[in-house]
């Protein structure tokens, strides 16, 4: 018997960790991973709510999220490669040609 709120809080924590990672990490790939972490958090709450509402659509939603995540991963990593090719760095703090 696990209270629903536990799951939700866990998902919230994961989401928060993802946000934190995005904010503090310097390596672009890691930042991207943090985004994935956020998505995982979201997924957890979807599943939890699905269980809560006895509505399978929640679980289906998770599939789509995964697909999207996969797609994003492909595109994102491609972009990262492109950037790396142009700038020879993976440090976001050094990727700031565009400013002001």
């Amino acid at each position: 018997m696990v209270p629903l709120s536990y799951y939700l809080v866990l998902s919230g924590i994961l989401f928060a960790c993802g946000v934190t990672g995005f904010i503090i990490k310097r390596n672009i790939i890691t930042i991207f991973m943090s985004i994935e972490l956020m998505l995982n958090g979201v997924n957890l709450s979807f599943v939890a709510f699905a269980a809560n509402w006895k509505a399978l659509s929640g679980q289906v939603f998770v599939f789509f999220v995964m697909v999207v995540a996969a797609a994003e991963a492909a595109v994102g990593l491609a972009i990262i490669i492109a950037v790396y090719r142009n700038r020879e760095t993976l440090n976001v703090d050094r990727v700031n040609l565009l400013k002001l």
Partner: protein
Amino acid sequence: MTSNLYLWLIPILPLIGAAINGFLGKRLSRQAVSAVALTFSGAAFAMALYVASQFSSLSLPHIETVAPWIRAGQFQVDFGFYLDQLSLVMLLVVTGVGFLIHIYSVGYMWEEGGFYRFFSYLNLFMFFMLTLVLANNYLLMFIGWEGVGLASYLLIGFWFIKDSAASAGKKAFITNRVGDFGFLIALFLLIQHFGTLTFSDLFQKVSALSPETAGAGLLTAIGLLLMVGAAGKSAQIPLYVWLPDAMEGPTPVSALIHAATMVTAGVYMVARSHAIFERAPEALTVVAIIGTLTALFAATIGVAQTDIKKVLAYSTVSQLGYMFIALGVAAFSAGIFHLMTHAFFKGLLFLAAGSVIHSVGGEQDMRRMGGLRTKIPVTFWTMTIATFAIAGIPPLAGFFSKDEILWRAYQASWIYWVIGVFTAFLTSFYMFRLWFMTFFGTYRGEAESGHGQDPHGHGHGIHESPKIMLVPLVILAILSVVGGWIGVPGSLGGSNRFDHFLGPVFRSTAPALNAAHTAPGETAPPENQTEGTEPQTGHSTELAFTGISVLAGLLGLGLAYLLYYRRPELPHRIATSLGSFYEAVRNKYYVDEIYAAIFIKPLIDGSSKVLWKGIDQGVIDNSVNDAADGARDVSDAVRRMQSGNIRSYASWVALGAACVLAYMIWMGTR
């Protein structure tokens, strides 16, 4: 309206002349130009004579309304003309003297450049002056009022190459404007309280008011404001400063505008507004005081002037002062009488002076003249007549009018009389001083030294002026002799026809006279209740006073004779002994300098430094620009958000998200 005299033609005729000369004159020959000018001014004069001939058959005042001019709400002003004895006198003086001076000018200006310009200006002046005289409402009068100002501006600045001339013109116009400002305010008051500016209705409404209520101040205020206007136009203290400078203009101009006609407009206007003034005793008193002071003040200055025209100018100012004394004591007809005679002899004086200047090649400084008596006899004799006339030596014109004024002034208050007599003494003194210095003794200058601007001095020595200039001199001389005889006071066995003639105009004055007389404190003899009807008693006293004033005149003559004929070295010693005072007098009491210091300079500096540089650029523009810069700085600050660093961006997003979340939760929990 009995019969239509086409009064509007009188002013229009000179205007046509002005237009013709102005637009075409450039191509016309001098003969043609002068012909046009003379024709039209002469025609105006003829019209005036015709009107005079018809005069007896008219029902006075004779009013002709031509067309409406301005209408706003219930307030309306027409182009309308107003003819009564007063305007008739003015009409004749203006057209007559004006015509003569036109003739004179043909000779005087013959060699001048801009001949056509001169005559078109001169005709223009005639137009405005006649409009002023014939107007049947204050606004139309104001047209003429401003118009003559314009004409004088143009004519003073006729030799615009000379900066002094240009400045003098400007000075004249602006000083007049100051006066007109008062005039305008007076008009506004009239409009506000009487709703009309047309003389007939207006005076009707005014007459309804009794002088007692005048203490309420409305009429007094109006009167004072009108007086401001008059002071500007007629060169009274404190606005007289422009007139002496106005002598920069050609001499005929000085004669016509700054002696005979325009400067008397103020007198005419006050006389025209007698209905108001009579009900505003305080105003009248002010008029009298201003007149007195001006008369004295100007006379003293005149004593020390050496420029022949300047002397005449100051004498004009002081003579105008006389007229205002007359008005101030409600002796309107006397004032007008003096106006007329003064027009004759002062016009003559100027023309003669012009002839002198002409003959000595543009020299105006009396110290470089002398002994001209024999060389230019006609000028000399006419000048002599004029001088005696202005000095008030019987039986010349000036004597009667001046005597009349003095007598009436005495009736009001002895102070006026004393000052008046003293002024009369001064007048005759400086006039004879001029006379002696110019015509007697030995010639002190050399004709060849002509002023640059006045191309008369080429070569040939002193010569009498051409006929065309002398004829007007002679005519005016005659007038200066006989002009006074139409106003011989009863005391001298005359019947003062002039006074009787003008009587009807001022007859409506009964209620006010007490106030007018009692104002200065001296109680007037009760029998002098009405203008026009001379008191039967008191001829003896009047005669005595007449004697005194004549005496004063002769005294002046004597003194001048002593100082400037017998012992020409004396004046210098006196001057040195008087020292600084004499200096002050010579420099016209530094009035111009004072005005410059307390009005003009602060105004210019203030506007330039404080208003323009300070407020306009300093405060307003700067604040606007600062606002712009401020925006730019803020913009920079906003741009700083764009550090270009993804993590910062994410932080902003997170921050925003947190805020939104907090807000929504707050909304949800409420």
